[in-house]
């Protein structure tokens, strides 16, 4: 079974679970289909042969009920462990990033040198998410308008971006590279082209890139302020997002 490249630390856990379920259901599927064909052939109509009436077989029915039940319980316990690891236990000492979706783009916000969101030194980008390799990243996902879904196929990350809600997810990139951010929830006429990019950098490249973005932003800021038009330049487009975040968070 070919799955996308594994670019995050927990991608193998999810893939192992996927393959396990695939094998269990696949083997059962083949057995059932073969039995179906065999019975069709074995008990086909023949002149002179009369059908025998049966009320069924209780022991067989109990067996084929208990075995699937046990398999389900086993899968539930196994996936519970992975779920805890991925969804419940947020890592400490992680890079914090905010992702605010809108029709049809991803607004990415870094806290900047002071480590706090909503301050003047925040770094914002459009559709460009950079993360350092080998360091956990916590992303707070939300949306300005409709429901989107933040999907990083190679990282096995998928989280709905729901307006009015802030959902925290984490992942850790384990190799340097450049991949796609896809929107996985129908969000309107531009859904098909709502695409961003995630780049996993080495620690040095990541810091360098952040500094470049911050520098470009300070150079741009006076121009954007002068414009002060409703036309959403990338820098101003993030401001309503902040309003959403604050209002949504308090409700």
């Amino acid at each position, binding site marked *: 079974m070919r799955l996308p490249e594994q670019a995050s630390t927990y991608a193998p856990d999810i893939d192992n679970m996927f393959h396990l379920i695939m094998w269990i259901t696949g083997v059962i599927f083949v057995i059932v289909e073969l039995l179906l064909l065999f019975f069709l052939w074995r008990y086909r109509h023949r002149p002179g042969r009369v059908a025998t009436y049966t009320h069924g077989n209780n022991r067989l029915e109990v067996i084929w009920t208990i075995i699937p039940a046990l398999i389900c319980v086993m899968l539930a316990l196994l996936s519970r462990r992975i779920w805890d690891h991925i969804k419940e236990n947020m890592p400490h000492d992680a890079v914090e990033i905010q992702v605010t979706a809108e029709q049809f783009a991803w607004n990415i916000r870094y806290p900047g040198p002071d480590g706090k969101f909503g301050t003047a030194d925040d770094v914002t980008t459009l559709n460009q998410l950079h993360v350092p390799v080998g360091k956990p990243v916590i992303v707070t996902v939300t949306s300005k308008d*409709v429901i989107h879904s933040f999907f990083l196929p190679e990282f096995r990350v998928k989280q709905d971006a729901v307006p*009015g809600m802030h959902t925290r997810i984490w992942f850790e990139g384990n190799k340097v590279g450049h991949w796609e951010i896809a929107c996985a929830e129908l969000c309107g006429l531009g859904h098909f082209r709502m695409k961003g990019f995630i780049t996993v950098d080495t620690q040095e490249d990541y810091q360098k890139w952040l500094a470049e973005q911050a520098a470009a932003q300070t150079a741009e800021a006076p121009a954007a302020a002068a414009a002060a038009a409703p036309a959403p330049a990338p820098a101003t487009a993030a401001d309503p997002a902040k309003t959403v975040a604050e209002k949504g968070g308090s409700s």
Partner: protein
Amino acid sequence: MSTVAKPREVHHAPGVHAAPTSFWRKYIFSLDHKVIGKQYLFYALFMLVIGGVLATLVRYQLAWPGRPLPFMGKIAPDGMPGGVMLPEYYNSLFTMHATIMIFFAIMPILIGAFGNFVIPIQIGARDMAFPKLNMMSFWVAVPAAVVIIWSFFVTGGAAAGGWTSYAPLSAIQPKGQTLWLISLLILGLSSLLSAVNFLTTIINMRAPGLTFFRMPLTTWALFITALLLLLALPVLSAALIMLLFDRTLGTTFFLPAGLVVSGQPWPNAGGGQVLLWQHLFWFFGHPEVYIMILPAMGITSEILPVFARKPIFG
């Protein structure tokens, strides 16, 4: 002893009604469960063709992206100008394909057509418990189909928010979405009337000796289907009405504070909960999969034993 000649009162058994005399009564506004069953069949087959055409257009676009279909440029000049499909029209196509197939094809065939035709025959009743209600179920379903087809031709085109119509996308869509909501509300009423009729018929009008556990499996399946419809549909209708109010009356059931659409604050946003739509919708949506599959399973469980020449067990 002299007796006064009195006109004898006619006591009909439940479900028995006079034979129709006119064409209209016999074929159009019929009270006969078999005729209504056939009406549902033709209704559903007609909608099946429409749903199929929509699916064909979706597949055409996937197979040859952007290749023009000149005749579609004439039928849908807004969605396919010059026959080239716009992204929003593509969204409309799959949304309406799913909506039409689920609500206007599968359900009317399996429940409306087979249910009406088969239930009275299988339980030994003369007709459904409420023949007039039965006629009304069908004739309420007709305007629903008219509205859903009409929605293709309004400004902005038909609904394009997926068959699940997740808010707030469905709250900010053009007018076609409003017609989608109205159409499903009307159709929901039709299904609800059918469900009440099926349940009453099956509970009260079985032939003497036909206990529940002797009842044929097709009727059993339709019985459970009707029960699910009765429990799940009102929840969907409530959600549809809430969304309709959000769209037309300025309520904010599904619109959280601070909603910004295309850079502009949405006029009536605040206090709503986006996930509420999903909870309400799937309270209906989960039973809906059984509503669609159970009658087919019931029919299969009836046909297999016949051709295997042995009774079914389990």
